[in-house]
């Protein structure tokens, strides 16, 4: 008789699989899951900030290819996930195609009434915290990662507390895709501990609030106001989501002498 190798789940931070610095874990759905701490949040945000510049500066073409490769990686391990994995894969494919089209849809050349070339382009907003609260489907988890990445942002994700395993498994898929270290960071643990820490972190620029919890959302808004973070609740359309995760920058350059 062969004894199965039981999997020890870990956080996915900075491209590495790590235990919570707190050394704690919870049992969820029959598995031991690391119980991320506020310090894990701080570490992950710091790592994400470090990765943000490089990811944002890659060409749109390259970011598109990397997101497409994530779709390929997930497809090849589809059997490890539930029935909705196909939709999750397609979500990666959809956003892979957005990276080099955002400018055409949201950008403008401005016909200003003076001799200047003036253009407004969508730029990444920076570090995005994804707050999933208690539960989230795999496709919505993937959308909350793929959309920020397509727009050039990096993410720190609070995985759904009652069902973190698909997210942690996804981390193992992304870990062997071409997504650079630190661009996606996945934390399991208790929402009551991770959500406020992420919402209050001063180096987070925007929050996707998919907690679907009115009380928690109010708390998120209040923390977010400290550093004027953009907060977006579930958007029903990809472009709304992408627009909310980008800053429009206008550059003026003189024409003539």
């Amino acid at each position, binding site marked *: 008789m062969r004894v199965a190798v039981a999997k020890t789940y870990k956080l996915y931070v900075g491209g590495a699989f790590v235990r919570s610095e707190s050394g704690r874990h919870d049992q969820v759905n029959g598995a031991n899951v690391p119980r991320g701490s506020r310090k894990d949040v701080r570490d992950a945000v710091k790592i994400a900030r470090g990765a943000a*510049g490089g990811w944002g*500066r890659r060409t749109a073409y390259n970011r598109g290819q990397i997101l497409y490769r994530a779709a390929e990686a997930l497809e090849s391990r589809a059997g490890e996930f539930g029935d909705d994995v196909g939709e999750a894969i397609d979500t990666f494919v959809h956003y892979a195609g957005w990276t080099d089209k955002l400018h055409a*849809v*949201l950008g*403008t050349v*401005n*016909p*200003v*009434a*003076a001799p*200047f070339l*003036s253009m*407004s382009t969508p*730029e990444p*907003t*920076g570090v995005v915290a994804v707050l999933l609260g208690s539960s989230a489907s795999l496709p919505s988890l993937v959308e909350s990662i793929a959309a920020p990445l397509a727009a050039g942002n990096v993410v720190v994700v609070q995985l759904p507390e009652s069902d973190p395993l698909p997210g942690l498994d996804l981390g193992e898929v992304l870990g062997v895709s071409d997504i650079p270290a630190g661009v996606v960071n996945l934390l399991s643990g208790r929402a009551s501990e991770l959500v406020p820490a992420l919402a209050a972190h001063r180096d987070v*620029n925007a929050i996707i609030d998919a907690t679907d919890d*009115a*009380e928690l*959302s*109010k*708390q*998120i*808004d*209040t923390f*977010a*106001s*400290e*550093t*004027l973070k*953009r907060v977006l609740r579930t958007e029903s*359309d*990809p*472009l*709304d989501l992408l*627009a909310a995760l980008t*800053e*429009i*920058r*206008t*550059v*003026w*350059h*003189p024409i003539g002498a």
Partner: protein
Amino acid sequence: MRWDYSPAPESTDHVRLRDRYGLFIGGEFVEADAYAPTINPATEEPLAEIAQASAADVARAVDAARAAAPGWAALSGLERGKYVFRIARLIQERARELAIVETLDGGKPIKESRDIDIPLAAAHFFYYAGWADKLAYGVPVPPARGAVRPRGVVGQVIPWNFPLLMAAWKLAPALATGNTAVLKPADTTPLTALLLAEILQEAELPDGVVNIVPGDGSAGAALVRGAVDKVAFTGSTAVGRDIQAALAGRDVGLTLELGGKSANIVFEDAALEQAVEGIVQGIFFNQGHVCCAGSRLLVQESVAEQVVDRLWARMQSLRVGDPLDKNTDVGAINSAAQLSRIGELVAAGVEEGAGLRQVSCSLPDRGFWFAPALFTEASPAHRVSREEIFGPVLTVTTFRTHAEAVEKANNSPYGLAAGIWTDKGSKAFEVAAQLRSGVVWQNTYNHFDPTAAFGGFKESGFGREGGAAGLRPYVKVEGE
């Protein structure tokens, strides 16, 4: 050498201000319980008595906007646009009067209100008027999702630095997209908003579509917490933070255009004379009461001494004084409160060891004045390098490499604007791409246009005004 100019005051003959202005609610001026004078900051003389909206008045204005909303939203885009075009034309027609009143009430030089504030305000209405019947082109609508709809009633609170222009930035897109509005002008500069109310009457804008409720911060606080569907605020980061917190947990749209501490970066290969003009324009325009003012000068070390010497020489020729004089470059500080805030921060800079140079010039006996000032050897840790002064005060820091310039420019919680001075186009665009700011001016500064989006990264707020991007915050996309 210094040349003196003869006074060239703008004539105020044809300006007829009323003794008092009420609240503009439901298409007419109505009385309020309380009034307060608005004064000319250059003379401290009262100009008119202005109604001070109470929370109940604000609620009444929101009700009027709510009542007007269905009719206004039901108009076809073309018809709605025609009203907005009318407003643009009437502003142009009354441009001279509006410019003088702007200068009287706010202290800014007449050449600026005449050549920038008022023409741009008209241009904003004109630009957004043309969007009214083209919204489906301006806001991409997903194929299966139906139509672009107004949000409903918007509450808008504007600052005192560009009173009529900020009213235009707020009202023009709101009206073009089919919203109705309640606008709260700043307490020190309510007059041009009230003249705009007269223009709205003359344009026969349907009653209640725009309501204007002058008052102090309490009126603004009541408005943003009122029964509105969207809030748009331009002002300080501190107040913006309070508004976001006050709206926590509520499904109310919010855009914030807040403070800044924008870097103006001069590279050694820049055309230095032009750069010096740009530095002056960047910080002394409108007495530095500009959210995107280029208040942090970063100069490459190799040309720092030369740039500062030329800048200091150029500053000597700035004419500070009567805002109504057509030759004036720097007018009056907007209010006693703002003057004391500038004074406090400058004193802190001196105490922390930054080297202060201030232009020595004769200032009028009455009114609020601050001579243009320069802090050399300002460390990034000094308060004058970090906090928004909102006055004619520039800090100077040097850098050696391109990377250091970018790092210093981005080292701020704000992210509104930046300037880059270099003769190399490739360098200008590369640096622009690395700056975390919403506007980047290359070899120029402080240019604005209704077609060009404006707004900040980070703690300078969120949302954009101007251009197609300025439509998005005022609409929602809904299935039909």
